[in-house]
């Protein structure tokens, strides 16, 4: 962290329940601009649920209720007059399993600009997004091939490119490397450092080394509760909470 940064996105006392099952319990978490924040914690502790609340992706699950506020640029994304589509255009997402559309590589990247009416300079947009995702050199000669022919690691970088094509301000990543081999994982981690120049990134990971390597801030969750949050180095070397210490030193989880 070279210079101080602003809070761009923030969860304020956010609680989320599936039916009457509480999955996220009164979490308050700031996300700093052009920083990487990682969310760690044991499986089922509510990491994905919290992450999906930032771009309202929980809207599509039956019987989800959310209380509290998520603010983006100081606007509540859950305000009654907030447009979830506009929120998602600013806050992109990459999922646990690569989910390219069954279309060509080019059409995957061009998809979001196309439906949102930004058809000008499409070739440039596609190239730029693929370059940002460090995939351009591998696919530049096969843009019209099906995206499903790519390897898993390439598919995941394609999904990153697809999300970047709309120039979002934030990129949410839910265990983006969990389905990938170590080489592909390393490539994506390198990529994160480059993207941080322009983007704000929130990454959920169950891999503590990954959190330690890539992130500026780390949040540790357990049973839906945010146990501890702070600069990554502090959280890993000098945690305040005993549960955090046990988790990051690998004594449970």
């Amino acid at each position, binding site marked *: 962290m070279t210079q101080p940064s602003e809070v761009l996105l923030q969860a304020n006392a956010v609680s989320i329940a599936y039916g009457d099952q509480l999955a996220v319990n009164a979490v308050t978490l700031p996300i700093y601009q052009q920083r990487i924040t990682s969310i760690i914690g044991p499986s089922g502790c509510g990491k994905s649920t919290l992450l999906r609340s930032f771009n309202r992706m929980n809207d*599509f699950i*039956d019987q989800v209720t959310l209380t509290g506020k998520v603010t983006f640029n100081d606007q509540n994304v859950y305000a009654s007059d907030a447009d979830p*589509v506009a929120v*998602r255009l600013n806050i992109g997402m990459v999922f646990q399993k690569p*989910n390219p559309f069954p279309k060509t590589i080019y059409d995957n990247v061009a998809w979001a600009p196309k*439906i949102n009416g930004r058809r000008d300079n499409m070739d440039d947009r596609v190239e730029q997004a693929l370059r940002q995702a460090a995939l351009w050199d591998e696919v530049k000669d096969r843009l019209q091939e099906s995206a499903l022919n790519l390897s898993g690691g390439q598919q995941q970088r394609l*999904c990153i490119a*697809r999300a970047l094509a709309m120039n979002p301000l934030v990129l949410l990543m839910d265990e983006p490397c969990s389905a990938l081999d170590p080489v592909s994982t390393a490539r994506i981690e390198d990529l994160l450092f480059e993207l941080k120049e322009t983007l704000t990134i929130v990454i959920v990971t169950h891999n503590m080394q990954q959190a330690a390597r890539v992130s500026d801030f780390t949040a540790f969750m357990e049973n839906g509760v945010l146990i501890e949050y702070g600069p990554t180095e502090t959280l890993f070397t000098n945690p305040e909470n005993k549960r955090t210490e046990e988790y990051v030193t690998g004594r449970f989880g």
Partner: protein
Amino acid sequence: MEQVLRWLFFACAAISVLTTLAVVGVLSIETFNFFQQVPAADFLFGTRWTPLLEPKSYGILPLLFGTTLIVIGAAIVALPVGLACAIYLSEYAGARTRDVVKPILEILAGIPTIVYGFFAITFVTPILRTLIPSTEVFNAASAGIVVGIMVLPMVASLCDDALRAVPNALRDGAYSLGATSFEVTARIVVPASLSGIFAAFVLAISRAIGETMAVTLAAGATPNLTLNPLESIQTMTAYIVQVSLGDTPAGTLSYQTLFAVGAVLFSMTLILNLIANAIMNRYRDVYE
């Protein structure tokens, strides 16, 4: 005991296979006999179908046109509405609505087809005749509409299955890119399930071709080389009913027309079902 059961089940399986073979066999032999007396070209390209009246003529085209009219009418009704129902069920309705509607579709699919025939005569035809007075009492349009209503539940149900086979991960991906529900449906889900939807359409058409009671009741018994849906026509199936119920003596050429028409019908539905199967097998490969 194990051995006995084993043989019992084998016998059951054998009987059903043998029965099918026997049907195909009889159909082939009788059709062969028919073509000994009527040249295939006269049968396939002839424009007059009067096997029971003098002067006899054995051109199947009028019956094919009749069946085609019914299929077109049914397709116009069943394909768009069935797909729309499926899209609503799969992409918009909540789990509760779906739990109510799906069984209703299955009940509708189980209504005896003669009931649809009555519905055509007593309800659809009078409406058509009020709207377009030149409509004949028995007409292809009324039967086609009703056959469409009849296959609609099947189209809706199969298309719903096809849409639901699209993984949610694709929908999530599209929504996360700022798509609306309509964009997700029209640009991701429907294209990704196109082969399943297409297979459903082919099966529906195959069923419309084979549908018998409703067209026998409502479409008339006039072999008619026409594309005007307001006229009385006769389909291949309705012709088979007519001859089977009549007093045409077995073994005569008139009687053998049954098998020739049956063979055409059988080939058409068989080919369509094979096409649907081939399509379905291909699309199952995509996501599994």
